[in-house]
């Protein structure tokens, strides 16, 4: 019975990952990992004696401990990977924020110049300072 439950659980997970992939809710680079995990648990659910066999080879006394140990290592790896991805995303967000702020200020200065070409100091948005010539137009 427990074997059957494990099998159903793995199958549901496998299908769920595929479905999320299909609906573009999950990107391939993350999906590969979960498909491997799902596939692995399907195999183990189908052939439970496999775990005992591998545990015997590795010298692990209780087969389930091997499973727990593998799960912990995997989850730590996933958490670390997500932190890394998050750092990358935060960095990209910061760069976008900088660029948006700079563009916004430039836009306001241009608008101020268009509205009062002779006296840009009257626009009241602090745009009265002449913009020094740009060394290069690129960031």
């Amino acid at each position: 019975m427990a074997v059957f439950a494990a099998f159903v659980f793995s199958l549901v997970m496998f299908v769920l990952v595929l479905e999320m992939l299909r609906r573009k809710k999950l990107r391939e680079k993350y999906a590969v990992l979960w498909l491997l995990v799902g596939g692995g648990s399907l195999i183990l659910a189908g052939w439970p004696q496999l775990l005992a066999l591998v545990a015997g080879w590795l010298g692990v006394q209780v087969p389930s401990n091997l499973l727990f140990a593998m799960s912990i290592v995997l989850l730590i790896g996933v958490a670390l990977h997500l932190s890394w991805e998050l750092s990358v995303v935060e960095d990209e967000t910061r760069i976008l924020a900088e660029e948006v702020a700079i563009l916004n200020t430039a836009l306001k200065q241009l608008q101020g110049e268009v509205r009062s070409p002779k006296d840009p100091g009257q626009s009241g948005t602090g745009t009265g300072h002449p913009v020094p010539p740009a060394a290069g137009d690129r960031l």
Partner: protein
Amino acid sequence: MFMTEPPRVLVIMPAWNEGETVGDTVREVLAQGKGYDVLVVDDGSSDDTARLAGEAGATVLKLPFNLGVGGAMRAGFKYAKTHGYQTVIQVDSDGQHDPRDIERVVQGLQHADISIGARFAEEGDYKVTGPRKWAMSFLAAVISRLAKTKLTDVTSGFRAGNVRAINQYIDHYPAEYLGDTIDSLVVAIRSGCAVAQVPVTMRVRQGGVPSHNPAKSAVYLLRSVFALFLALTRRKSQVPSDKA
């Protein structure tokens, strides 16, 4: 003798909810009459810092959300580079840095790429004690050795930089805690920027409360040592000074 116009100086002021003081500080800097351009980087303030700074005559860079002092400064450096400024100086918007000292700190750039307005160098009566003091003197000793010049206040935010420093900062200017002072300085030195120190007086902050308690100071010590360790092991920036 050629009459060349002096290069324009951009005063960068990171400001986060500094509505109380930012207007006065901007006006005070502009009142120096040295032709400084003031850029206030509004670091996602929820008060009207941006409006008050603009009314006082500053150009305002409004970040859509809070990025921290380091993030704000980096945006400022990017602005400086985009607009071709040769010299930048960071000034606190809470009025702790005396605008009259700006000229002296900028003068320090004649012999260096980064010029630090230092609080402990003979002038003024700025004092700290306990673990915070140990951290500061330890950092000063290590970074002085790296920079091959005597530096007494390496966590000072009152800093000027030239084009070389701006380019280096844009390549590497961490937004994390303490990164904007220690980390940025150490990486700049290792990337070949020369550093000089100019003594300045520090004024009493115009608003807000400084945090002084032993536990916080101890954490400060640990974090600064950690920040230093990271900075010492980071890769150097490749900054040819003519990089466009």
